[in-house]
């Protein structure tokens, strides 16, 4: 019986020049192709590395493997329909994307949510920030070899998803917001769920700190690795925790508060070192701040409507639709044509887990955007890879990529 099969791969590694190990042993440089399908690249990022032994000489990041034409799709569906697509940007924090997008369109409309609606959005976005950070840090730890922390983190992330399921029916692709409100209100007794989660999450954060932050191997691997200076970070367009780890105190929740963030007390942690270790430390601290915001928001959440109180553009209560002609027409109009936006241009950026997610909307009036441009934080983070990686060892690459906490779905759109 023939037990072994030899595969000729005419279109793959067998013939491609850069896949072959044809470096001369007198010290030639080798081109190493990391990705697009590689454990360290968290998705489909491809790095074309030129290495000298173990040292990276140059790096050429190739993005776009996950390009789905998200911006073009926005021109072909109305504002409410597009909410479902925003789940797929940063698929580790779908709720944050929903909220950022809805806020952008509401800015175009000139609407302001009632107090309760804002509080619900703050709670949802902080929960999704925690879930994204938990996963990001867990994967980061796994990249440097500590597998167990990943599973501890995942447990916490699952709790957030359980809560998502309660509030919007889906665990992952939430599509929670609509223009002018949310699909439904929080269920009864949500405050207990959230406070329980805050309790267990802070315990897990302490555990992570004990397991990793004070671990000699972890410190040795990350301190002084992947140092991004303030200038590099700014010129590369980095935002979010990656920028704050390089010494720039820029957090949109503080600098231009939206959704009533100015009502909550929280600090913006800033680190000066800009290395992988600082980014890890900073994320842990931001999680603590998120928990702080969550606790305040749960305590302060008012009673009242969650939708913008208007006669047009938002869905009427179902009870009225069944009885009133006017409401039936309105339901039909909102479902098929969404809001009637004024002509104009608007830019709104929200502080998402990965950084600033911005939406530029160019409207010619009506329910469909003429052009939607996304400013994705992961793209900014990845754009400095070719400056950052040269000089580092191959083993540093997973650590650096993990510390960026990027998501290809958002970078490639």
């Amino acid at each position, binding site marked *: 019986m023939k037990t072994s099969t*030899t*595969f000729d791969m005419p279109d793959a590694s*067998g013939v491609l020049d850069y*896949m072959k190990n044809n470096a001369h042993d007198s010290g030639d440089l080798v081109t190493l192709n990391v990705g697009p399908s590689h*454990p360290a690249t968290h998705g489909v990022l491809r790095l074309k590395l030129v290495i000298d032994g173990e040292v990276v000489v140059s790096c050429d990041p190739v993005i776009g493997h996950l390009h789905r034409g998200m911006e073009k799709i926005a021109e072909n569906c109305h504002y409410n329909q597009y909410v479902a697509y925003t789940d797929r940007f940063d698929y580790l924090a779908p709720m944050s994307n929903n909220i950022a997008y809805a806020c952008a369109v509401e800015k175009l409309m000139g609407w302001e949510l009632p107090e309760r609606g804002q509080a619900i959005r703050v709670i949802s976005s902080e929960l999704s920030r925690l879930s994204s950070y938990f996963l990001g840090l867990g994967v980061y730890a796994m990249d440097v*070899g500590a*597998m*167990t922390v990943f599973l501890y983190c995942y447990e916490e992330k699952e709790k957030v998803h359980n809560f998502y399921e309660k509030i919007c029916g889906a665990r992952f692709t939430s599509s929670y917001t609509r223009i002018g409100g949310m699909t439904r209100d929080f269920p009864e007794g949500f405050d207990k769920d959230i406070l329980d989660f805050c309790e267990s999450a802070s315990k897990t954060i302490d555990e992570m700190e004990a397991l990793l932050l004070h671990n000699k191997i972890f410190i040795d691997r990350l301190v002084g690795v992947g140092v991004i200076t303030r200038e590099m970070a700014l010129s590369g367009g980095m935002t979010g925790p990656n920028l704050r780890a390089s010494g720039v105190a820029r957090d949109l929740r503080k600098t231009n508060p939206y959704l009533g963030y100015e009502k909550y007390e929280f600090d913006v942690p800033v680190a000066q070192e800009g290395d992988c270790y600082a980014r890890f430390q900073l994320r842990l601290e931001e999680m603590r701040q998120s928990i702080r915001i969550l606790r305040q928001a749960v305590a302060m959440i008012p009673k009242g409507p969650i939708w913008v109180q208007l006669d047009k553009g938002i869905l009427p209560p179902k009870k009225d639709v069944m009885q009133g002609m006017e409401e039936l027409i309105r339901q039909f109009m909102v479902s098929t044509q969404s809001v009637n936006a004024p002509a104009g241009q608007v830019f709104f950026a929200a502080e998402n887990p990965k950084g600033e997610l911005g939406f530029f909307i160019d409207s010619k009036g009506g329910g469909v955007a003429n052009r939607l441009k996304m400013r994705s934080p992961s793209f900014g983070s990845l754009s400095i890879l070719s400056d950052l990686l040269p000089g580092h060892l191959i083993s540093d690459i997973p650590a650096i990529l993990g510390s960026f906490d990027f998501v290809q779905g958002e970078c490639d759109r």
Partner: protein
Amino acid sequence: MQFIIDCWNSVMGDPTWFYLITTIAKLALMFILLLLFVVLSVWIERRIAGWIQDRPGPNRTGIPIHLLQRFGSKEKQPLKKWLEYFGVPANSWIAKLCTWLRLDREIPLFGLIQPMADGAKLFLKQEMTPSYVRKGFFIAAPMFVLGPPLIAAAVLPFSSSVDTCYGAINMCVANLNIGVLWIFAFSGLSVYGLTLAGWASNSKFPFIGGLRATAQLISYEVAMGLSIIPLLMMFSTLNLQEIVQNQAENGWTLVPLWGEGLSLQRWVLLLPMCISFLIFVTSVFAEANRTPFDMAECETDLVGGYHTEYSSMKFASFFMGEYVAMVVGSALVITLFLGGWSIGLGADVCLADWAKAAAITGSDQAATCWQSILGCCAGWIVVLLQFVAFIVKLVAFVFFFVWVRWTLPRFRFDQVMKLSWLVFFEIAVINILLTAAILYFIQ
């Protein structure tokens, strides 16, 4: 019958045949034991990893009962029939417990079947050999990984010797006077496996993995070899059986609490021994290529390291080789530092005396039936107890291995090399001088 006994007596009476037969029996025992232990350690690893990570791990895999039908059983629901046989009503708590334990579907073995299922899966996988590999070396490499640790295990004593009426049987496969050197020589050979795998794959990730493995294993071989020299100076022998015998009588290397172990010299020597222990254990981790030293195959930057291009049983050979190296390394650590098969606290000497006395009483004409049976078995009982002690220690150390793996992050390659050459090498050399000084000045 008499003829068979006569034959047996004449064959076993011949020292050459006696030696051959006992050696082959020990060899088979050791080989089976080691391979079973590899399977067991895979299970231990996964269960403990599950325990550490707040998840159950493989706890359900059992032998499915419908297999019985495959072998001719007509019974559709054997559990029901068995319960009826014993007169247990179908709605009693015993029946419910049995159902809860899934006894109606399978014979549960706490997931112990899982490693075998894994093995079967790997065995049945399609084997892919990329077209661009260097075939001969590609096939030879897994053998070089799996073979040497198995050969190295030959000198590990798993129990003391036992006197039979044909002669004494020493409970290690090969009682060599250069036992320690034998282990180093053969475990050093496994470097070739990793190097060849990396080079023959003719692909870049394996190539880097192979290079790393070579550098790392050679470096840690040095640290490992130097670290146990103080210990060999203390015991003045390279024979592992004698080292363990000495520890059984005079206190384990790290626990000198009985016999001559209570002398001042042994207690002062504890310091260099502890240093040796730390270096040696770390080096065993590095030699076994396990986290935090799994540079050669760290999946996050090298995909799979040297075994990226391997599949099916060739991959399984690497996998098993790693576990054999882990088990052999653990056995070596407990043999050198934690008394090997010795039960400890002077119990071995007492047991040996007891066995001798029992043998003398049993061979007496006036002995009762029980005394003579005990006289025959006493030696074997002692050997068995020591064997159990050995296995218990081995499992404990394998647990330690697993614990470390699922707790610590991975080193970076240059840090690993620095640790070996700039830290361990120096400390080991100083440690040798320190031990020499202690042995010379403190009597």
